[in-house]
């Protein structure tokens, strides 16, 4: 499973905010820390704000502040705002076949799809089970 850039930027951002919920940070501060495009990150933060995970702070030194529930929000909740990885993987015989798939025997394509779906299901279960709070604890353990 490979996450899209938006999802990764969102995960980095919410973890940064959730690590100190009272702190207010701007898009440019987070962009600099994680080597992200400030323009791109601004769009991501707007989505997080619209979904109630962040609160926009206006005025001089404005930015965003964390308003989510770190003990309840899972990695999947955040990723789900930017891409649909919960949907089951398309099986071989269902839907349009790509140019490469068109040359593969259907049973081969199906068997490969079954294995890839198994990997996806494990990844999704992992993302659904890890809250931001658990991630913060994991980060603290790795700092020791």
């Amino acid at each position, binding site marked *: 499973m490979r996450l899209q850039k938006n999802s990764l930027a969102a995960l980095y951002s919410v973890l940064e905010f959730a690590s100190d919920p009272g702190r207010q940070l701007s898009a440019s501060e987070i962009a600099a820390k994680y080597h992200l495009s400030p323009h791109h990150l601004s769009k991501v933060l707007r989505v997080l704000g619209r979904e109630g995970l962040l609160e926009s702070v206006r005025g001089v030194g404005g930015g965003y502040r964390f308003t989510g529930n770190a003990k309840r929000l*899972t990695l999947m909740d955040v990723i789900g705002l930017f891409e649909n990885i919960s949907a089951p993987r398309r099986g071989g015989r269902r839907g349009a076949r790509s140019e490469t798939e068109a040359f593969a025997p259907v049973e081969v394509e199906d068997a490969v799809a079954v294995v890839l779906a198994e990997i996806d*299901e*494990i990844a999704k*279960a*992992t993302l*659904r*089970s*890890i*809250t931001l*709070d*658990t991630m913060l*604890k*994991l980060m603290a*353990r790795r700092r020791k």
Partner: protein
Amino acid sequence: MGARGLISLKKMRVRGVQAGDLAQVIDIDAGITGLRKPDYWAEILQRYGSGRRQQRFFLVAEAEGRIEGFVIGEVRDWEFGSPPCGWVFAISVRPEARLAGAGTALLESICEGFRKLGVTKLRTMLSRDNSLILSFFRSQGMMAAPFIPLEKDLE
């Protein structure tokens, strides 16, 4: 959260199960799984109860005379090619008593029992759809183990 969800940790104690606790254990399990299994629990009490048996643990969290949750586990030696490690195969807390630290206290108690037996690794296994309990174990620092459970349909 129900009123009993506000039970303070100070009022809660973890101890070995007693025969008189079984009815409440059955109630807690039935309330969560939707299945009442008295015969199964009588068998579990016989195998894991009667005080802390060597390598086997059946602990309950009690607050104000009521059983709020339980944990069951044992040390298994060299299963799956692994050195002895502690396995937790059941942990449950009444829904209205959650978020008060009962699950954490139960897990810590059984881990302490495992440590006293010289075990340094804790393992468990559960359905990947069980996000609630998966999240609990994750919050306790548990990570994916280097094992993959496999199954097949026997026709």
